[in-house]
């Protein structure tokens, strides 16, 4: 499992995902529309990885907890409170770039 190219297949078969705060893991999971609990590693507190996890939590897309609170979170969680995560829009980037370089 170490460095599988994509976890898409596993994600599709899952009902709940518990993950570290890595951006790729979080975003892939949310894009598959799966409920996600992000477990934060306190020892890496200054890691910028937390920024995205915190924001996703603030926006109600994920549940967040630290390692010691995981069991409690699993017991008391209400997944229906999670909001769906709309996909990013690379079309907007394409439109912007076309204007920048002069392709209309």
């Amino acid at each position, binding site marked *: 499992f170490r460095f599988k190219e994509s976890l898409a297949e596993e994600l599709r078969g899952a009902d709940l995902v518990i993950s570290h705060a890595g951006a*790729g893991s979080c975003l892939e999971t949310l894009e598959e529309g799966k409920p996600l609990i992000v477990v934060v590693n306190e020892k890496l507190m200054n890691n910028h990885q937390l*920024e995205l996890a*915190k924001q996703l939590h603030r926006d109600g897309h994920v549940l967040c907890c630290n390692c010691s609170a995981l069991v409690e979170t699993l017991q008391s969680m209400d997944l229906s409170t999670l909001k769906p995560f709309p996909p990013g829009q*690379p079309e907007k*980037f*394409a439109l*912007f*770039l*076309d204007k920048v370089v002069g392709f209309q």
Partner: protein
Amino acid sequence: TGGHTTEILRLLSCLSESYSPRHYIFADSDKMSEAKIRSFEQKRAETSSNSQFTLDRIPRSREVRQSWTSSVVTTLYSILYSLPLTYKLKPDLILCNGPGTCVPVCLSALLLGLLGIKRAIIVYVESICRVETLSLSGKILYYFADYFIVQWPDLKEKYPKSVYLGRIV
């Protein structure tokens, strides 16, 4: 590297055929990006006739958490590599999104522009992971890029010269 490659390929996904040829530059230590890029380009070739691309590796500018002084040395070394490469490619547009690898390439392009050899438009897109703070590459290139794009409103407030288009990956 990794996440950066995934993000940049998503950025490229909606670009028209006019953005050709595409030259990908990545770190020599990167083992997975080449496969991702080839896979992307292969799919692209199925729908468009004009699919030219090249791949080039340059020495990695900086390891995660590498010290300041040694980072300057390794970045200078990367510039030694990227200058002739950028000169050879003479890009019209440079699109980058944050790995240390992009800094020497952009600096090389700036130099070529200053010398009147080739002026490239530099577009920098900060990673979606960056919500409140910029990456080191971002902090440097904020002052040098022609267009600096951020994906969260907090950053647009902190860096007023940046462009905010919402989440684009």
